[in-house]
């Protein structure tokens, strides 16, 4: 298999502080409303009423930090009419903003909401895995910024060796569509894609 970089996120370690999201915005100078990395707060369960007292039972909440998955089957590169989206030899999926015509077709096709439209530039933008830093042998800004060391990055074989192969925490979609280059370490609350017991609770932040 060709080289493929991947992110990993340890859901058990993540507190949903969004330092990764802010580090990304800072590093990439993103305008208001554009978040290449987003933190999804997924909550569910219910409280039990026992003799007038509410007793917590199966209530759960966890955060899922997600950016572009630099998929092994990237639908964005396939649907882009301008061929502006390409996959590098190291697996990083990039948008050539000179080629992009701003039709937003990729944003319809990507189940991870990674390509986002920049109104000022008139083109799509998305996480480039801090390719400039990676090229210098450094790690992406989000990974560096995580105060809990919940995020990691590396060649997918190494990442999978360290953290396993789970890529389907709810509310993320079924990984079989695009084969994302990502690994999540589940905690005891983590539900699987397609779960309907919980809900996204921070919609206004996303």
């Amino acid at each position, binding site marked *: 298999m060709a080289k493929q970089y991947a992110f990993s996120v340890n859901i058990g370690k993540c507190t949903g502080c969004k330092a990764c999201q802010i580090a990304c915005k800072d590093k990439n100078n993103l305008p208001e409303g554009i978040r290449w990395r987003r933190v999804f707060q997924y909550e569910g369960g219910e409280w039990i009423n026992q003799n007038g007292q509410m007793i917590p039972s199966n209530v759960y909440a966890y955060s899922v930090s997600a950016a572009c998955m630099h998929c092994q089957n990237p639908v964005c590169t396939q649907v882009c009419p301008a*061929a502006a989206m390409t996959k590098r030899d190291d697996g990083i999926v990039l948008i050539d903003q000179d080629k992009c*015509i701003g*039709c*937003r077709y990729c944003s*319809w096709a990507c*189940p*991870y*909401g990674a390509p986002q439209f920049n109104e000022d530039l008139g083109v799509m933008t998305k996480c480039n895995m801090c390719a400039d830093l990676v090229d210098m042998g450094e790690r992406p800004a989000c990974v560096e910024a995580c105060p809990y060391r919940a995020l990691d990055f590396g060649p997918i074989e190494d990442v999978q060796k360290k953290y396993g192969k789970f890529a389907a925490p709810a509310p*993320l979609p079924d990984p079989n569509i695009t084969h994302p280059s990502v690994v999540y370490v589940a905690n005891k609350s983590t539900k699987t894609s397609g779960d*309907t017991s919980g809900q996204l609770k921070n919609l206004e932040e996303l």
Partner: protein
Amino acid sequence: MNTREWALLIFSILAQLAVGMMLVLMIVRTYAVRKLGEEKAAELTEMPFYIVVPIMVVAMVASLFHLGKVMHVIGAVPNLGTSWMSREVVFAVIFMILTAVFAFLQWRKIGSASLLVIIGWITAVVGLVLVYCMGMTYMLPAQPAWNSLATPVNFYLAALLLGVVGTAAALVAVYARIQKNAALDEFVKLTLQNLAITGIVLLGLEFLVLPLYLVFLSTQGTAAIHSLGSMFNVYSVVLAFRLILVFVGAGLLAAYLFRKASASGNEKMLANLAYSAFALVLLGEVLARFLFYATHYRIGI
């Protein structure tokens, strides 16, 4: 729905109207030549063929408004290998050019009648391929509300239906302005009658496809249920009007048109009916397309 999706709505409706009219007009023309001879057939069908060109040009101009960078539009072509949108753009451009070539040859009387017929049929077939590409463009696994057979089927039904009522309206407009004779009277009445029957059949098919589609959607997971929910809550009025307009209003009109066309009815009444049928079907299709763009939800995040 935002401005950019309105651009797509206008493009898709007008392009399908143009394709439908091109196809139906070629069929009408073929019969007209047989029944009325080359000269009278040309007199009746030339003007409607000219109308197809500006319809397609307006569609193409509208489509530009959904781009973030209009000047880069030529860049929408390179990914023909995998992108249905590239294919859609290419076939739309070829179709537009062919309609213009057809109109030009017809206008300047260049080439033989059979050459015109060949180009006309090629144009119609390219149009049908365009509608197929348009349907496939929306068949995205991440968009359950679009990713069903209903999308291409509805696009073809819209193209044929708009083509039928558009052609009927254009024919009565021409008919009022040309010198009549018994054979022409008979031909126009018969043609309108056939167009009305075809329209009713197509409306019936739409009436069949919609509930099947809604049932299918209910089995396609959370995002699809979300689409259904928004169709029946936020946009329930649009859905209701779409049904009323297309199935009751236009259906009745088509039936009425059929009845009037059968008897030697009032000519002006007939024209108004044809125009109204076109207006109602067009509005119905616009509402349907509005729902298409307004109620799609992506799976995932």
